[in-house]
């Protein structure tokens, strides 16, 4: 039982990473209609921002983390302006390839500028370990889970209550109608990318403490984030978050009980099976595609 609980904890921790990325992906797709292949790279940029905050600016961890999230706001804006806005009206193929190209540039620019050797960041909570019910975990993980849930709560309130949030939900439902009633479509798209970037910033400020920072750290995360988004129903933020946690659990369980090598195959297999049985995702609405 102890072993099983250990793996559940592992799964939830993995899942919180996927959920943070998936939430941003889902928001950007729902509001701007764009599949952002470079979203994992935003997470990577945030991680390097944390590193710079600690090393170059000499900030203590808490300040560096806040600095990271704040820095990701203009980064998101820049990303929108350079990559998303120019292909806003173009076909979906071009949009996909544009974000893919952005991903290639960001990863390789990081390799050239920062080097492919990993960097480490530290936090006072990382070394403090709690033991609950026989399961050992660092307090940093508690912080990650707490901040993740807080961020989602804040996002939920924004989407439900705030004027701009409601506008974004309207856009996700019907773009042309929104344009017709005067909702500023492009500004909403910018806001969605900035929020997605900030969420990636939260992830980047907290998670790299437990591992390390490399230029390619975002690649696999993007793909698993997409898996979560698709399973949750494209554009459905709640669905993406739940699916993110679910995929984390699937991966941990597969690694524990089947094989560590093929664990990722289970994650993608789960995605494909979901698409076969329910093409609109677990939470999406059925859409007729010829």
């Amino acid at each position, binding site marked *: 039982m102890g072993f099983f609980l250990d793996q559940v904890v592992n799964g939830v921790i993995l899942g919180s990473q996927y959920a943070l990325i998936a939430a941003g992906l889902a928001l950007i797709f729902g509001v701007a209609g764009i599949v952002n292949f470079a979203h994992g790279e935003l997470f990577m940029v945030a991680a390097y921002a944390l590193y710079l905050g600690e090393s170059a600016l000499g900030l203590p961890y808490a300040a560096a983390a806040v600095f990271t999230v704040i820095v990701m706001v203009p980064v998101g804006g820049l990303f929108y302006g350079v990559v998303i806005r120019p292909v806003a009206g173009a076909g979906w193929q071009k949009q996909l390839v544009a974000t893919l190209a952005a991903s290639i540039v960001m990863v390789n620019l990081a390799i050239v500028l920062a080097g492919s050797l990993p960097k480490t960041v530290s936090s006072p909570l*990382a070394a403090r370990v709690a033991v609950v019910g026989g399961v050992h975990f660092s307090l940093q993980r508690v912080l990650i889970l707490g901040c993740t849930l807080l961020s989602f709560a804040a996002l939920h309130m924004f989407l439900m209550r705030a004027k701009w949030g409601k506008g974004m939900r309207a856009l996700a439902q019907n773009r042309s109608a929104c344009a017709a009633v005067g909702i500023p479509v492009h500004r909403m798209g910018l806001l969605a990318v900035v929020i997605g970037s900030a969420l990636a910033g939260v992830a980047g400020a907290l998670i790299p403490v437990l591992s390390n920072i490399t230029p390619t750290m975002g690649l696999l995360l993007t793909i698993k984030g997409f898996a979560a988004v698709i399973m949750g129903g494209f554009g459905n933020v709640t669905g993406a978050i739940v699916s993110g946690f679910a995929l984390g659990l699937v991966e941990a369980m597969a*690694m524990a009980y089947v094989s560590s090598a093929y664990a990722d195959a289970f994650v993608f297999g789960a995605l494909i099976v979901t698409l076969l049985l329910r093409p609109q995702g677990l939470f999406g609405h059925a859409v007729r595609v010829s």
Partner: protein
Amino acid sequence: MKDKRWRMVVALLVPVIGLAACQSSSASPGNGSTTGNGSTTIRIGLSASFSGATAFYGQQAKAGAEVAVGELNAKGGKYKYQLVTADDQCTPDGGSSAFGNLLDVQRVDVILGSPCSAATLGGMTLLPAAKAPALTVSSTSPAITQQAGIGGNKYMWRMNINDDVMATVFSKYIAAQGIKKIAIIAVNSDFGQGAVAAYKKTFAADAVTITTTQFYTQGGGDFRTQLTNIGASGAQAMLIIGAYQDAAVMMRQFKELGLGIRVYARGDVVSTGFQQAAGSPGLGNGIQEADNWDPSYQAYPGFAKAYWQKFHGDPQSYAVQAWLGMQVIAQAVAAGGGGLAGIERGLATVSWSSPIGPVKFDAHHQAHHDMFIMTFDHGMIKMVKRIHTAG
């Protein structure tokens, strides 16, 4: 309107291609002739990965080789050394392309490389037609030795002892410390898979049970699940087969999970690189590792100092091995003369007492230098044992 955008694209491309063309034309062919008589410049072609996620292999190897070139040229004498490089992207087609570029375009006298086994395997097929020798100093795949030397590719040479040799020795060492049950955690690459295959055989021969074998993807970042599996498997010890970047993260999570079993390693875990990546000193205390190089730099303090002066960092395994490889080539040149044929002849007769032990190539063009067992003791790298593997 469209034409204006086209002009922008062309304006972007022209300077890039112009720059590239200028650079490649300045790389003049070396005068290392194939007849090997009295040529003064020896061109060494380093094939390694200089782009993408594996870029640091090439960067390290180039740095180590550059120190060697500086030292060799400072000594003076009949031969002057020149280093050129080609990116092989760590893939077989990349290796084939890089070896081809080095041989046919940059006209080198010998190839040093590749640190990546896949690239070496892809590139070595070009050697017989060009009658050009290549020396790898970091590739770990056993297939290379199997295909080289007698009955195979006469032009491929390997300096670094591979895992088949090291596993035999290290396995006995571990068993002698009273370990009966061990778990393995290995990187899922040619290096990791090759080592696991070797250790499976030797542990069985030494009556050590492998309780579980866990694999991870390089740069994975989260090893909790694998470590939890290992903790639950009842192993007395854990063998890490991987590089120090992942090992540092792994050890942090190992401590977090409260695992207290003994840790062995096979890679470059006990190294200054690990200390930098670890963050906290003493994270690796107690780890014992089998190495084909000396991470404490006691065997070559002059090189470590020269490297630090030039690059302001500690040399890791790829740099050390490249430096050693350059000297093996210099030995071959001294014995057989310059040029492709001279170096190929010379490599066959090299018998060098190197800082890491005797370097002499057997029938399969494999050298058998010494093996090092290293450990972290109170945050310092210490040598536990130095073992002869030759004869």
